[in-house]
């Protein structure tokens, strides 16, 4: 399973569209791939009690998070016929409109990527210890809970 080894999931700050474009470009040499599926989580300007979120600050329990990302990765390669898979998650501050999660799965066939991507995203939300501090425009904050 060496080729599936996970590294550098966490990135400091937002994940940029240029980084995502570069990642897509790198997959053009994989000519057995017929379908890519990409999930992007973007920070919303949610309004709560009249205040508007301006930034989310992410923290994680790194050791456990990395172990969980690896487990998700191994499970996805076992369950689905994937050629490759990448996960990137932000740490630190990400402003509204910026991207905080980038999951990228590739397979010869499209059916595999739809199922695999949803599986991976739901597992990340459920099992990876990442915490989000929603900071409002007035600098007060609230702790984010996934729904």
């Amino acid at each position, binding site marked *: 399973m060496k080729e599936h080894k996970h590294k550098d999931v966490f990135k400091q700050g937002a994940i940029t569209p240029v980084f995502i474009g570069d990642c897509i470009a790198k997959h053009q040499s994989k000519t057995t791939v017929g379908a890519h599926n990409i999930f992007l989580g973007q920070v919303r300007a949610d309004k709560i009690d009249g205040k508007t979120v301006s930034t989310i600050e992410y*923290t994680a329990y790194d050791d456990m998070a990395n172990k969980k990302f690896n487990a998700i990765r191994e499970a996805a390669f076992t369950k689905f016929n994937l050629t490759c898979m990448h996960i990137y998650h932000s740490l630190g501050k990400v402003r509204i409109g910026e991207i905080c*999660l980038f999951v990228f799965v590739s397979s010869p066939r499209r059916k595999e990527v739809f199922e695999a991507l949803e599986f991976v995203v739901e597992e990340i939300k459920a099992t990876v210890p990442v915490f989000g*501090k929603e900071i409002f425009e007035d600098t007060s904050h609230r702790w984010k809970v996934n729904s």
Partner: protein
Amino acid sequence: MQLKIKYFGMLAEVAQCREEDLHCNEVTVYGLLKVLYGKYPKLKEKNFQIAQNNELLSPKAKLTTGEIALLPPFAGG
């Protein structure tokens, strides 16, 4: 038993620290919770889980010396 307790997210606000060393005579998660609730009564209002060795523990699980993490609801992505 010597433990290092790590607090994440809103729990670090309750404990007013990110980690601390704690000597604890209790050997189960349930016992540790009693100690922590005594030290930080506001923890009782919080929804959180306890992990050791990168795995979530049930209330009856036995603790071992070392790092313990208090984890509020996950909010990745």
